[in-house]
């Protein structure tokens, strides 16, 4: 827009409003490497002791940070791959093929997409217990993937919808099977969608808290979110700087992914997203 008005009053106002967030972010980083003066919060000396959780062997009954990180990674990546690959196939079907019951599937997809999944947690908990998948990583992965699927299929269908019909028709004219057309001609066209969905569902799995908390509470299948929340709730060692360091450690992949894939993510957050 024009520069006919000065922008500094708005900038000032925005800075003031953003101040709580800014203070939180800045201290989140500073406190990882410093100790405050006794009784205060201002940093006074440099230290690395808040990161000792990375190399110290945990006491009995506590989980080892690297095991927990590994669990989180398995959880997030498996969920992400499952959601993306399944959405890739069924998104195509819903976008392009005239299968029986297509209308019902589409209506169901829109409904499930808007459905607040968290209200199902009680029933899912009981269902997993009956199925014998309670307290396993597999159980949480399956549930998380299933709950993400309507969103993933929705996004992928949107990407397939933008691919011109002509590409497909040309392929069919040349005698290729529908599968070949999908694999060789259509998939390259929706690559941005696949990448965005992979990243989005990985982040969503990495940050997930309630599902692992409820469905897999035992310490050998702990993920970083439940590990950190258990640490905060533990009254015996109250140490904000330790919590924050664990938190930073937990958030590093998120920040890296955000910086690298910012544009792709904005697309998916801007489109029909969950609030």
């Amino acid at each position, binding site marked *: *827009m*024009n520069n*006919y*008005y000065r922008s500094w009053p708005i900038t000032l*106002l925005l800075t003031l409003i*953003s101040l709580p*967030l800014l*203070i*939180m*972010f800045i201290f*989140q980083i500073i*406190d990882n490497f410093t100790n405050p003066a006794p009784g205060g*919060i201002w940093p006074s000396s440099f230290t690395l002791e808040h990161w000792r959780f990375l190399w110290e062997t945990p006491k009995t009954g506590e989980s080892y940070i690297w095991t927990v990180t590994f669990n989180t990674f398995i959880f997030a990546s498996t969920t992400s791959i499952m959601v993306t690959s399944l*959405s890739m*196939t*069924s998104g195509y*079907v*819903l976008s392009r*093929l*005239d*299968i*029986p019951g297509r209308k019902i599937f*589409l209506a169901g997809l829109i*409904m*499930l*997409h*808007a*459905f*607040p999944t*968290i*209200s*199902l*947690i*009680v*029933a899912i908990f*009981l*269902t997993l*217990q*009956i199925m014998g998948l309670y307290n396993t990583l597999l159980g949480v992965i*399956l549930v998380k*993937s*299933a*709950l993400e699927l309507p969103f993933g*299929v929705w996004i992928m269908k949107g990407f397939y919808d933008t691919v011109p019909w002509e590409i497909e*028709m040309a392929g*069919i004219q040349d005698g290729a099977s*529908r599968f070949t057309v999908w694999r060789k001609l259509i998939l390259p066209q929706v690559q941005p969608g696949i990448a965005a969905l992979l990243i989005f569902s990985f*982040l969503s799995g990495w940050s997930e*808290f309630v599902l692992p908390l*409820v469905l897999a509470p035992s310490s050998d299948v702990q993920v*970083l979110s439940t590990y*950190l*929340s258990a640490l*905060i709730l533990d009254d015996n060692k109250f140490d904000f700087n330790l*919590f924050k360091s664990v*938190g930073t450690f*937990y958030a590093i992949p998120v920040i890296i992914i955000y910086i690298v894939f910012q544009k792709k993510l904005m697309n998916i*957050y*801007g489109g029909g997203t969950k*609030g």
Partner: protein
Amino acid sequence: MNRINWFGFIFISPVLIMVLLFFLTPVVMTAFFSFTNMSTSTGIKGGEYLINQETIKEIKKYNIQKDTIEKLENAGYSINEEGLKIISEKYKESLSNEIKSLYFGDKFTNRKDLERALKKLKKNKIKKTRDRKEIAEIFKESIINERFVSKSIFEENLIKLEINQNDREVIIKESYTGWSWTNNNFKLIYNLPSSYKFAFYTLIYVSFTLTFNVVFGLFLAISTFYLPSKTASTFRTIWFLPRILPPVLYVLMWKWFTWDTGFISQMSTYFGASPKNWMMDSPIHAWTVIVLINGFVGASFGMILFSSAIKAIPSSMLYASEVDGANRWQQIWNIIIPQLRWPIMFTTAYQTLSLLTSFEYILLATNGGPGRSTEVWALAAYHTALQNYAGNLQYGLGATYALVLVIIGIIASLFYLKFFNFKDLVTKPRIEG
């Protein structure tokens, strides 16, 4: 079915199975569980029949025959290993062996029969009636503390004890350890004053957070629109970060900010106030913090949607208004806001419904406290069914709370179906092979 259908079917079936198992089944199951009295003590996999001291106390409260309890205690006599072992220790091994060879595995309904049988022993004659009585007592069995897997087996045993039908029914009902069907959960929720409180808290939570989200989202979108693009994107990043950060970490930062060793307390000491927990000090404090925690995340939702809607406004319209001498207020009020009507409606509707069922940030921040003053409906469902300090988790009651949310969810989804132009979505595919 032709080839193309098979291809489509194979391609879509994994999703159908997953969604059916972990999405639609839970919806049905929520309704199913809400009509049961399942809890930690009843278990979830059906139960057994067991009479113990507690059961007897309960049974005595009913109008039953005087000798019923006695009958339960004297369920007959059976010759088994345990009894024989006691005999060989207490009396003679040869006696034990003779009884074993003659009667092992036999059952006697009353003591007289067993005593008569004991009279028939050849090698180790028991002369005294008192001794016979004592030995018979060793083989006495009781139905008490014995587990029965099914109702029919249990009832058969009660019939053998000559307990009449009325008493049988009472005993069966009281000794069942599993869950049963009931509609008490609905009555309970209807009658409990606390459920009205939860509903009221949910109303507060949704209305305040929503207002914050929309107003702030709108403010951020409009103000960053008028800023140079670099400054604007910095602010957008700052406000987007809470959405992208893991909730556990984000709430941790708020705890540091508001708790008694944290930032606000520290700042207020410079003004002579004593440090206190600004999050948990009083219900008002807790609510303020909760609305802020949710609002700082939720505002970015509106910000993104509104920003892209503002960008879509033809710049010629804005230029024209400036030429006509409109100031910024008039420009915002008369051009931008009317263009945003649709996104604002969407955000409001969508966030209302997702806020109604969300509890993650409240769970992490205040966990419903102080007291239960921030316990919204969804959190009450969670606490009732999945985690509480009493330890007895009321799955059935919790599912009933959740059922209300599921119904809201279904309404939300129907709304969504209407909102999207469904006809556009179901345009027929153009290639049919």
